[in-house]
């Protein structure tokens, strides 16, 4: 475990020494901030209208936080390939993979370390959105608990896609290919719920279950369901396990 943390620290060092970390955080902050601004403006107009007509108060959680957290996950879909594309591809290209694989660390420690590094960066990216949502807590009274559950969901969902990206990054020396392949795989997992939105056969239910967004819905509402947690965790484990196999096959093939 100390070795995994060592590698995780090194990964973070590499992210923040290159423009990647800053670029990803800036893109996220910009898009999220703009959406937040629009959502809050609409909310204010809507509440004014509502109070003139004598309606009851509307929930900040339902109107702003929930859709915005879902949207943060969507931005993540685009940013995650940028985070994971270099993870192994770069080490394979420059040959530093030889240092890692001939040092007394297990493959699994290397993989987990790298994944943890990517996850920490992703957490920092999501952290940017707290600046915006913090304003709501400063001037309004939204519920804290559902918001935290939403963030947990985002992290679990991100961890899953980051593991997928890590897996794909072991398969090529080319960062661009790794990035594009990760993006399309993630997009596929994302879109599975759309394909099956209008029918209710067993197949479509199964396919729908596989979609990575379906499982976020509960988190978004602030409901912590073990079913969803287990889905994300098991998909993450599967991807990391396959990464270990892929790294092993690298030794046999190369």
């Amino acid at each position, binding site marked *: 475990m100390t070795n995994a943390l060592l590698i995780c620290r090194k990964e973070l*060092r590499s992210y923040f*020494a290159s423009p990647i970390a800053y670029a990803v955080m800036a893109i996220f902050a910009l898009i999220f901030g703009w959406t937040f601004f629009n959502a809050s403006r609409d909310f204010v107009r809507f509440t004014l209208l509502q109070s003139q007509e004598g309606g009851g108060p509307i929930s900040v959680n339902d109107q702003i936080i929930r859709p915005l957290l879902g949207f943060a996950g969507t931005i993540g879909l685009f940013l995650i390939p940028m985070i994971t594309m270099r993870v192994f591809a770069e080490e394979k290209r420059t*040959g*530093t993979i*030889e*240092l890692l694989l*001939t*040092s*007394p660390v297990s493959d699994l420690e290397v993989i987990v370390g790298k994944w943890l590094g990517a996850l920490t960066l992703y957490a920092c990216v999501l952290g940017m959105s707290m600046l915006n949502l913090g304003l709501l807590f400063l001037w309004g009274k939204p519920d804290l608990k559902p918001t935290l559950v939403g963030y947990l969901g985002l992290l679990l969902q991100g961890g899953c896609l980051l593991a997928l990206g890590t897996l794909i990054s072991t398969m090529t020396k080319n960062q661009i290919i790794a990035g594009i392949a990760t993006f399309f795989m993630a997009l596929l997992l994302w879109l599975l719920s759309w394909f099956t939105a209008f029918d209710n056969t067993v197949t479509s239910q199964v396919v729908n279950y596989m979609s990575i967004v379906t499982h976020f819905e509960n988190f978004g509402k602030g409901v912590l369901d073990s079913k969803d947690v287990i889905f994300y965790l098991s998909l993450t484990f599967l991807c990391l396990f396959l990464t270990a196999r892929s790294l092993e096959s690298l*030794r046999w093939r190369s």
Partner: protein
Amino acid sequence: MIKVEGLTKRYARTVAVDNISFEVAKGQIVGFLGPNGAGKTTTMRVLTCFLPPTAGSATVAGYDVLEHPMQVKRRIGYLPETPPLYPEMEVREYLRFVGRLKRISSADLGRRVDDVTGRCALGDVRSKLISKLSKGYRQRVGLAAAIIHNPDVLILDEPTSGLDPKQIIEIRELLRSLAGEHTIILSTHILSEVEHTCDNVIIINQGKLVAIDTVSNLTNRLRGSESVMVEVEAPGGHPDPTQVQQKLEQAPGVSRVVMKDSKDSRLRFEVESLQGRHIRADLARAVVNSGWGLNELHAAGLSLEDIFLQLTAAEKHSAVPAEAAKGESQQ
């Protein structure tokens, strides 16, 4: 310290290493020699647990590379052909990272980093970014990282490639200073390097073992016949090349005479002796007795280059190494 038995490594279509066996004793420096693509890097990668062997076994310090890779990895320092450096790190930071990776305790880490920066003369660049370093410094950082955990066995893949002559000499001296406490295998295709640094030589070609011996034995073994350069000058006038050649050929013990060069009244010949004959005195006598001037006469010894070419070329027409081996056993 290192024992390799029947090692074979096959890739999809090619056999990179074909049934190689050798042993390296503790404290030796062994040169691993062969043309590009001979299987040097592959063999080293098997020894460092980077690649598993297809067949055969390799043990380092008594631990098998397949069964106890962790034990092997702890005892090995490895410098691949391109040093595995992270350009975004500073030299000191990189060495600390590698040290931690090699399981050096945090109490010893600072001392070890200082030690290797001193040994590899990296003091001036210790807080520079690796991406800003020249090729020579990068190589030295790679070497420093390879020896940071004071490994029993040091495996270096072409440690002097791409360095300037001064740096090559520095690296050689560094390697010599490391020998004794460390067992070193270094691969190269530059032969003078082996002559200068190594105790033993392992020559491989096209994945097959061609020769294992000490440097001096190998030179002697193939230096059975002597090769002599002779320059003859006829006083006043042009000598007849064929006449001189005949005279030289008639000298006792001569097997072959080849004219190399003729300039004005001077002629140069390369004369080869029969096995185990010394012909220089007889050649001098033959020239002087014929009334010519003897300008120059010296033995053109076989360099390791020639030996290497002989051995690896012999591999192609595979009759010769058998003969060489026979010659060896008869001596």
